[in-house]
């Protein structure tokens, strides 16, 4: 391996505390560190307030403090073409996409990786809470972040060997509170900066309002599974399976239990609602998925195996039986799971190792397809 001072690491700096500490640690370790800020969203495109200026200012402050060069690169086109277009298309199909998964696959570990390679990078480094284990033969395995509360392997599960081979996650073995402590001790400007929440380009804004700027909302009926009309919805895309908020239905049902979204019929433009958090229509016992991606070869497992899975970010794992057919998967759960959402990823784990994922297409209760889209 090359001497560290000869090893160039291009750090994706977002202006947040995590990537600031990544850059700081790598510099401390003696690497040739270059900071790059990605500008992925053109704030002139919508009515929101863009935080890119502020974030870039923070990158500049932190990079100067650490003593590394920093640059900004524009991936607005790549983001628009490969992430945002997909995001809108999925919503048009009544599904709930995960743009962060796509952003990693198409922008951070593709456009950005390419760019870094053009700067002679040996590695790129990111502030994700995830870990990498490298075999003797060079095969890379993705492991959960040490801070179980922050683990971000869910969002990295669609990456390939080639993409991860060039990656470093220097804070993946750390707890968030220690990352903040290091930032504070090093006097980094972002030490106390609030973590960003929500989808990167939408930020803290009203999600429905944002979505409606791009997709015309088609209102329709809200009804129970047996056909009782309970009111109007303002566009199916504004609701997700298992959602309680914003339905505006009083307790005029069979009980006083609150109402939840239990299904969508895109063709008829109907939003199905039902009472109770544990409404039986919210529970599935299997799913079909596509776009299956495995980070490292799983030849040893064959096409049928048992492992654990997450169906959304920050959910507890559930035991599952997986059957593979090329890039299609069929996943049977050890016990029923609430609110399986088409468009999200089903992410597979073998202990601490994140095996990969597939995109959820349909959820089933016994043999019945749940009317989720």
């Amino acid at each position: 391996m090359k001497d560290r001072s000869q090893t160039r690491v291009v750090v994706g700096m977002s202006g947040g505390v995590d990537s600031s500490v990544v850059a700081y640690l790598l510099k401390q370790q003696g690497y040739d560190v270059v900071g790059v800020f990605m500008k992925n969203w053109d704030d002139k495109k919508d009515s929101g307030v863009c935080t890119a200026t502020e974030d870039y200012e923070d990158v500049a402050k932190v990079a100067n403090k650490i003593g590394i060069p920093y640059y900004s690169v524009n991936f607005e086109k790549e983001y628009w073409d490969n992430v945002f277009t997909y995001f809108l298309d999925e919503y048009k199909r009544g599904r709930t996409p995960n743009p962060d998964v796509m952003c990693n696959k198409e922008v951070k570990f593709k456009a950005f990786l390419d760019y870094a390679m053009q700067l002679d990078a040996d590695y790129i480094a990111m502030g994700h809470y995830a870990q990498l284990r490298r075999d003797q033969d060079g095969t890379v395995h993705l492991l959960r972040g040490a801070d179980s509360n922050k683990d971000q392997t869910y969002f990295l599960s669609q990456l390939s060997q080639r993409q991860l081979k060039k990656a470093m996650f220097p804070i993946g073995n750390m707890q968030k509170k220690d990352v903040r402590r290091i930032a504070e001790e090093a006097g980094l400007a972002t030490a106390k900066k609030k973590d960003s929440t929500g989808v990167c380009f939408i930020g803290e804004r009203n999600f429905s309002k944002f979505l409606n700027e791009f997709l015309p909302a088609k209102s329709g009926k809200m009804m129970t599974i047996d056909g009782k009309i309970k009111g109007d919805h303002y566009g199916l895309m504004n609701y997700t399976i298992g959602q309680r908020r914003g339905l505006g239905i009083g307790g005029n049902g069979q009980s006083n239990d609150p109402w939840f979204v239990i299904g969508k019929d895109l063709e008829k433009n109907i939003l199905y609602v039902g009472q109770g958090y544990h409404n039986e229509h919210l529970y599935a016992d299997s799913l079909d998925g596509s776009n299956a991606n495995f980070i490292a070869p799983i030849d040893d497992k064959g096409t049928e195996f048992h492992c654990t899975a997450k169906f959304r970010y920050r959910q507890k794992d559930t035991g599952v039986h997986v059957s593979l057919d090329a890039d299609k998967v069929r996943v049977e759960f050890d016990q029923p799971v609430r609110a399986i959402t088409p468009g999200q990823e089903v992410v597979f784990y073998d202990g601490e190792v994140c095996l990969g994922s597939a995109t959820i297409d349909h959820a089933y209760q016994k043999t019945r397809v749940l009317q989720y889209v």
Partner: protein
Amino acid sequence: MKHIYLDNAATTPMARPVVDTMNKMMLDVYGNASSTHYFGRKARSVLDDSRHVIAQSVNARKDDEIVFTSGGTESDNTAIIETALARKSVGRHVITTAVEHEAVLKSMEYLETLGYEVTYLPVNEKGRISLDDLKNALREDTILVSIMSGNNEVGSRMPIHEIGQIVAATNAWFHTDAVQAYGLVDIDVQKDKIDLLSTSAHKLNGPKFLGFLYRRDGLNFASLLKGGDQELKRRAGTENIPAIAGFAEAVKIVDNEEKEARQKKYAGFKQQLISGLQKNKIEVEVNGELASDNLQHVLNLWFKGCSREVLLTNLDLNGIAASAGSACTAGSLEPSHVLMAMYGEDSPRIVESLRFSFGYQNTTTDIEYLIDVLTSIINKLKRSETDGIR
């Protein structure tokens, strides 16, 4: 690492005599030039002497035609906005070009919000306007024509002498942004019939945050800044005497002989760079033209098929400072309005071009190093493209 500065159109290093003069002034001449005591008089005397040197440099009729400002931006803003406000009863039409500096273009946009009409003259692929376009655009209610002397991105010169004669025959005043041209080519406000002229000291090895506005005697308009009666009521705020003395020192350095020598030296750099790259089989084309009357310190090159972001960053990582236009507040490069005006919005030149700008401190060795580094960067990029790095 070796560091080579080839971004002299952005700003220049200060010349040693300028620094020496300023140091001396900062220690010895700290009075306020408006004060009536000994210290004030001493400052006033330095101010007068400096103003005289600068007035001579553009062949002003009177020293008082020179008003010191905070730089090119303030000079442009004052000349455009205050002229328009003062002459609104005469007319509300202003003419400029599509390739002006932001300090001019943003002033024009501001006038548009006030109800003024602005005509933006187009340029050809050489970055020059046509005099016929100007003649056709002039109207009875045209109160101001603002056309830059030389362009900061491609170095093209505008026919200032001819423009001056045309505008002088009308009711309009003629302003020229000479920020890039001043100190490098001859400027004669009388011969060229210039009414208003903006400059900046830091483009010719003087201090930053200082410039002047030449305003022909007899033109009346207010100070952009409101305050004291400094500069004969034409620019409020205490004069920065050390910087002004430094500016005068910088102007003294670039006498006619020195200007000519520099233009010749920079033209040589251009030739050296282009032929060196061509010899190394780098596909390169000049944006604009290699005209002998252009500003020779600016060279804008199109590197076919190479991203300007990648080139610029690689150059910086190799110690070479160049430019590829202005950056937005999030640090990413904006498309150049100058190249768009010259080649259309869809031209690949807009995202594949770099600007190199030379200064008196640069040497042929610097250019040689630039050729080597550029060649190795571009060859590597081409190689990785064909190999497929991923």
